[in-house]
């Protein structure tokens, strides 16, 4: 075992210890440490990715001295390393503009506490990506919920407090369902590690005993993760939370944290239960229908919004719908497209939230569209990156969003009858709707403002923040042009995933 084999574990440990130590650092140092830790995690994950690309199979990494089926372990494969690399890269570029605008939301004295939560959130995301143990999933989902609650609640604003209270209520309900599901699964199988668990599940299915409880377990855990990742009928908590949080928190929450829940769900489907059972228990058609409904209805509600941040938050609901549509197809191609959407949407959405804040900032902190006229001229870099991100959302070629839609359509073509028709129609309608509201926004930020509108002078965006936004934009363009190797990685990664 080489040193690189340890890197995923080290990156988790690094984030968690950084979370502990930043509490005593001065705010400036704390921000620096958080930034460095995220950068290190990116490098370590990228090295782990290149290692797993040279290996044929994923490898387990035992934590402590007890081998399976007793101890705790993480498992590292291509897909996991790819996701860790993608998410830490998105977080790294979000941190620069996010930290720059932090004084507007967090008092300087408390900003080291904010850094703790960023570290903890990253640690939880990494653990959820790598872990091979179901109870660890529960514990770190709770840590992630606490971290995201604190990330949002730093903003002392009535709307934010109400939104986070609603958020917590829904998430606690989800956690309860998850815990009950895991307990019942432990009750019928006697395992918590995923590999022995999947063997026990096979036995249950073969013998036919406890098939009823197994269905209940699958339903409970799927519902819990669907609530937590804002799948369409359970999305009620999402728009307000994303819209009223500080921009960096919105970027982390909607970009990275919601994807971690979905990754756990994919892991649960593929590694624990087995996709054939998920399909035969009618879970995946349910996800498919919810995904399609979310794609359409999320976009329709987004069109009716007058606050730009709420519009972007509702478009998140629609984009999560794409992921669930891909996952709900039940085929490998569908899941691969969903995985690619997870990577692309993480980058696009965090960029959108950060760029939008810059546009709002040069418009006198007003969020209605009519005040935003001309914002693209007042802050040129933010206008450009917003335009590119919006194009990716609509699915214009050469951006990540186009590849997502293309792959989903290809995955849908493999089916016959109503499913193919539904996939294609849903993609077409949702592209049209995305076009309506995103292009409308782009047009409105480049429109001439009304004569009597006065814009108070605002703080200029620093070159480093603008540079970070541009790097993120280039990443989106890369996902659109150079998607082939990434898709192949996802494809081979999914084969060794279960």
């Amino acid at each position, binding site marked *: 075992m080489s040193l690189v084999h340890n890197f995923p574990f080290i990156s988790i440990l690094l984030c968690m210890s950084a979370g502990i130590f930043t509490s005593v650092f001065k705010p400036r140092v704390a921000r620096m440490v958080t930034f460095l830790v995220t950068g290190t995690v990116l490098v370590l994950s990228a090295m782990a990715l290149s290692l797993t690309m040279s290996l044929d199979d994923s490898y387990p990494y035992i934590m402590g001295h007890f081998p399976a089926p007793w101890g705790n372990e993480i498992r590292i494969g291509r897909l996991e390393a790819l996701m860790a690399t993608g998410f830490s890269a998105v977080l790294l570029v979000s941190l620069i503009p996010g930290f720059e605008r932090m004084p507007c939301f967090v008092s300087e004295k408390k900003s080291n506490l904010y850094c703790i939560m960023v570290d903890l959130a990253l640690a939880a995301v990494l653990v959820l990506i790598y872990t091979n143990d179901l109870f660890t999933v529960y514990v770190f989902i709770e840590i992630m919920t606490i971290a995201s609650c604190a990330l949002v609640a730093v903003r002392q604003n009535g709307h934010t407090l109400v939104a986070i209270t609603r958020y917590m209520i829904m998430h606690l309900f989800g956690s309860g369902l998850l815990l009950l599901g895991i*307990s019942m699964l432990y009750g019928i199988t006697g395992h918590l590690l995923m590999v022995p668990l999947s063997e026990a599940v096979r036995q249950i299915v073969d013998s036919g005993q406890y098939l009823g409880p197994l269905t209940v377990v699958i339903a409970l855990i799927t519902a819990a993760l669907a609530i937590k990742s804002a799948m369409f009928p359970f999305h009620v908590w999402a728009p307000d939370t994303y819209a009223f949080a500080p921009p960096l928190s919105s970027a982390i929450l909607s970009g990275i944290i919601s994807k971690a829940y979905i990754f756990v769900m994919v892991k649960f489907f593929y590694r624990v239960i087995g996709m054939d059972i998920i399909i035969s228990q009618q879970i995946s058609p349910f996800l498919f229908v919810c995904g399609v409904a979310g794609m359409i209805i999320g976009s329709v509600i987004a069109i009716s919004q007058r606050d730009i941040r709420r519009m972007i938050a509702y478009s998140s609901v629609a984009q999560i719908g794409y992921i669930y549509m891909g996952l709900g197809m039940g085929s490998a191609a569908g899941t691969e497209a969903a995985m690619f959407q997870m990577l692309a949407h993480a980058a696009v959405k965090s960029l959108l939230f950060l760029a939008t804040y810059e546009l709002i900032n040069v418009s006198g902190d007003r969020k209605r569209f009519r005040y935003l006229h001309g914002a693209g001229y007042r802050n040129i870099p933010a206008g450009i990156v917003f335009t590119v991100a919006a194009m990716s959302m609509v699915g214009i070629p050469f951006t990540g969003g186009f590849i997502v839609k293309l792959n989903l359509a290809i995955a849908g073509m493999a089916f016959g009858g109503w499913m193919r028709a539904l996939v294609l129609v849903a993609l077409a309608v949702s592209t049209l709707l995305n076009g309506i509201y995103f292009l409308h926004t782009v047009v409105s930020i480049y429109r001439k403002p009304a004569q009597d509108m006065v814009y108070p002078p605002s703080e200029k965006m620093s070159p480093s923040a603008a540079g970070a936004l541009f790097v993120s934009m280039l990443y989106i363009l890369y996902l659109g042009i150079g998607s082939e190797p990434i898709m192949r990685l996802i494809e081979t990664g999914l084969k060794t995933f279960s």
Partner: protein
Amino acid sequence: MWQLLYENLEQTVSVILFVIGFSILLLQRNLIRKIIGLNIMDTSVYLFLASMGYIQGRKAPIVTDGVLEVTAYINPVPTGLVLTGIVVSVSFTAIMLALTIRLYRRYHTLDIDEIALLARGEDA
């Protein structure tokens, strides 16, 4: 049917408690009642776990009198899970209470719908 439910009395009771808990959590408008509902919901899962790990006639898995046979003790894993779960639910209760205090200081009410209305009124 009733026979089956009676044989698994602890599990039945804990699922009933779970439903009561999450109904309170989701339907009550008072924040303190919501927190109580949250605790009922979590505790019901601990009852479920603890009853699953219990084996009639055996002792808690702590070696005090030198007995080392596995058959003398109950399954320790669910008990460990319950302990972890309790820690989690205590921290969540603390966070929810802190949020409640903040909201109460600002709006002088515990009714979440009323608070939402007041917060919307702040904009105008």
